[in-house]
């Protein structure tokens, strides 16, 4: 089989990204009777459990800038972010009617309340608010979380019509460990040679992982890594930046492209934390639920939706991202009205300032269309980094 070019691989990812009818997931479900598809919103759910139940975890990350939101707007006031209204739009227009269940992670009050709205508006789909512990002790938060995972396991077993065995769960953990390792590899590759892995491509590659079976996505990442490494692309004198704050409502693809066009290489981000939530492999020995819980409590990334028990540690992960990716600055790109990210930002800004790391901030919506101000702001930031570093 001939190796596909980067353009061909990304074209496949782009088609998946553009398809708001989730045709690939529908086809996957139709292939084998009894398969289940479980939707989830950002930022984290234990996808291993869904896979172990013979299901496909499907990331529902809003409607982006291509979906015309008509009915969804009727459910929200003007001062609520965009993602719940476009998600409602996806629901009421029947685009999610093939889902067997929908999970709403513990991210903010808006997504939390959306879980209840889903129960009322789409009673045929099992809707569950998925709570995670904010206490990180094994004997406190860990016990709670293992029980919550157990409840979810039971729900999935009922939907699938068969028990979710430990063996199946260990197999799923193995597959997701492999997938996360590849995600880390793609991110490391981009940080090393960002001109060879433009962020819009990396973004589309990661988005494909939201709708494809895990093994298929892992294969796609391998293919991309090989093709991107082989590609000859011009190296630009861009500034290297980390994006922070975009972990829930996603920025339009054009925004990501605009940041790079303005003279910034994005060398790390928090766009889709679910695919790199666990920073190391989840243990495949012992009780698999305990292994997932331990990974959550002790080895997951930091984000605004998580409580940070140690004041001194606030911002440490972001600074580590900057150091690891050799970034020169941080862009806080935050959805309008995103409480967790906007309240977190001043604390992160202080942490960055203490380490002499420059930053800028702007807000967006998933359907933002006007990119000129973003380009000007990011471009000015890139220039100022160059000036400082030359000083």
């Amino acid at each position, binding site marked *: 089989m001939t190796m596909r070019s980067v353009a061909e691989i990304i074209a496949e990812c782009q088609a998946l990204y553009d398809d708001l009818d989730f045709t690939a997931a529908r086809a996957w479900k139709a292939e084998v009777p009894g398969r289940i598809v479980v939707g989830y919103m950002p930022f984290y759910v234990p996808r291993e459990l869904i896979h172990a139940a013979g299901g496909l975890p499907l990331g529902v990350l809003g409607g982006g800038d291509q979906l015309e939101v008509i009915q969804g707007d009727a459910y929200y006031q003007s001062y609520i972010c965009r993602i719940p209204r476009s998600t409602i739009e996806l629901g009421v227009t029947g685009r999610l009617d093939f889902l067997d269940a929908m999970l709403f992670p513990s991210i903010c009050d808006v997504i939390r309340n959306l879980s209840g709205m889903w129960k009322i508006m789409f009673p045929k789909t099992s809707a569950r608010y998925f709570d995670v512990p904010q206490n990180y002790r094994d004997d406190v938060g860990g*016990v709670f979380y293992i029980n919550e995972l157990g409840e979810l396991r039971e729900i999935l077993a009922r939907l699938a019509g068969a028990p979710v065995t430990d063996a199946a769960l260990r197999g799923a953990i193995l597959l997701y460990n492999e997938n996360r390792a590849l995600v880390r590899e793609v991110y490391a590759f981009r940080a090393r040679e960002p001109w060879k892995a433009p962020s819009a491509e990396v973004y589309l590659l990661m988005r494909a992982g939201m709708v494809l079976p895990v093994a298929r996505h892992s294969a796609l990442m391998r293919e991309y890594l090989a093709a991107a490494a082989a590609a000859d692309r011009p190296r630009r004198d861009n500034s290297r930046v980390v994006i922070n704050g975009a972990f829930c409502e996603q920025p339009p693809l054009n925004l990501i492209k605009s940041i790079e066009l303005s003279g910034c290489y994005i060398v790390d981000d928090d766009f889709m934390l679910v695919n790199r939530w666990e920073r190391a492999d989840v243990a495949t020995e012992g009780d698999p639920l305990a292994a997932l819980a331990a990974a959550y409590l002790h080895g997951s990334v930091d984000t605004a939706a998580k409580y940070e028990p140690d004041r001194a540690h606030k911002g440490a992960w972001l600074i580590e991202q900057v150091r690891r990716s050799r970034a020169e600055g941080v862009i806080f790109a935050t959805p309008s009205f995103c409480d967790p990210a906007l309240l977190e930002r001043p604390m992160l800004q202080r942490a960055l300032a203490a380490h002499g790391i420059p930053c800028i901030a702007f807000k967006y919506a998933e359907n933002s269309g006007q990119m000129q101000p973003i380009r000007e702001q990011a471009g000015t930031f890139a220039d100022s980094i160059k000036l400082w570093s030359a000083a």
Partner: protein
Amino acid sequence: MSPPAPVVKDSSMLKQKEMISGNYRRLETAAADGRKVVSTFVPGNLNELIMCFDVLNNLPEINAIQNGLRKKTGGYIMEAEKRGQSEDVCTYVKADLGMIAKGNIGPDGQKLPDPDLLLLSYTGCFTFMKWFELLRDHYGCETAMLHVPYQGDGRITANMIAYVVRQLREEVIPKLERLSGVKFDIDRLRENLARSARAEDDFVWVLETAKLRPSPIDAYFGGVYYIGPIFTAFRGTADAEDYYRLLRAEIAERIAAGQGPVTPAGDMPAERYRLVVEGPPNWTSFRDFWKMFYEDGAVVVASTYTKVGGLYDQGFRHDPAHPLESLAEYCLGCYTNRNLPARIDLIEQYMNDYQADGLLINSIKSCNSFSAGQLLVLREIERRTGKPAAFVESDLVDPRYFSPANIKNRLESYFQMIEQRRAGAAPARAA
């Protein structure tokens, strides 16, 4: 121009005012008196437990409300925004951070003490978590976190209770013991909880008098005064018990005299509309907002805001026989910790039990915990009850988001709609 008429105040209001002032005085002299201070929140507060350690209770939400009522929050919010807080986020948080930035002068004009412990018992609102992280960033003091899971499926599970109790035992109580030097005494907690339960009985009696016609109380504008002691630093105290006994007697007198609610302008003459209200009030124009109701004879007979600190009218009581479990159940059961279907069921129940003419939603710009989903609440209640619902928008303590002309206009239209329904006009959607 004649001076404004004096505001009418009942004895219970005067008592509560003295209780609040007393707490602020104790906070102001905490350092001199050698008292430790714990900052904590209203929904899910652990007052009975805090009292076991002889520490003082400072409530940033209440400071924001009191400052809002005194029209101080506009400047505080702008100060916080100047210092990097987004215009999009909770104005309680910004009012608090702005007050701190401007010297931490409390609502009564005296400097508030720095907290010795931030007791983060966040119930039904994610913002609390970030709020206390921001306060910790400022004060650098110790924080005790009590994570209260959300009732996603509309029920409290054994796992949730066990988790909260474990946190109380392993996290909260040890930190309070270390801070205060006082050993935890569960019998003392039982006594406090027993006092709470007695006050809760009287409180519920008061709320349920609104089922009468005319209602002797306004369960929203008046209700925010009635919840004061039981939601804040006084639940579990003898003072709170006395307050609710006094309040109950006052309301009993009003019923005997066939009187409606007391308002800032005196007794309300006639009850024309009975409303259920969802959402918190606006505090910066509280009196103006209230006036728009009582001038037109609108009485709020039940409200959801008065349930953010506990759903006592649904049968919950603090239980001395199961002290920690009872505290856990209390935290888990607060109104905004219930899922949206459960909230809608509760409002429907209020509409029926209190014979309301309609539902009014005061949608708060900076409170997603309440606001996200309210338009579905409105539709569902109209569908289930056939009664008209209306929607106004304001904010908690940001005066920039209170537009009196718009709100009054909407309310007047709403009252006309109720009249039309009464006159037998078919709802538009059924025509």
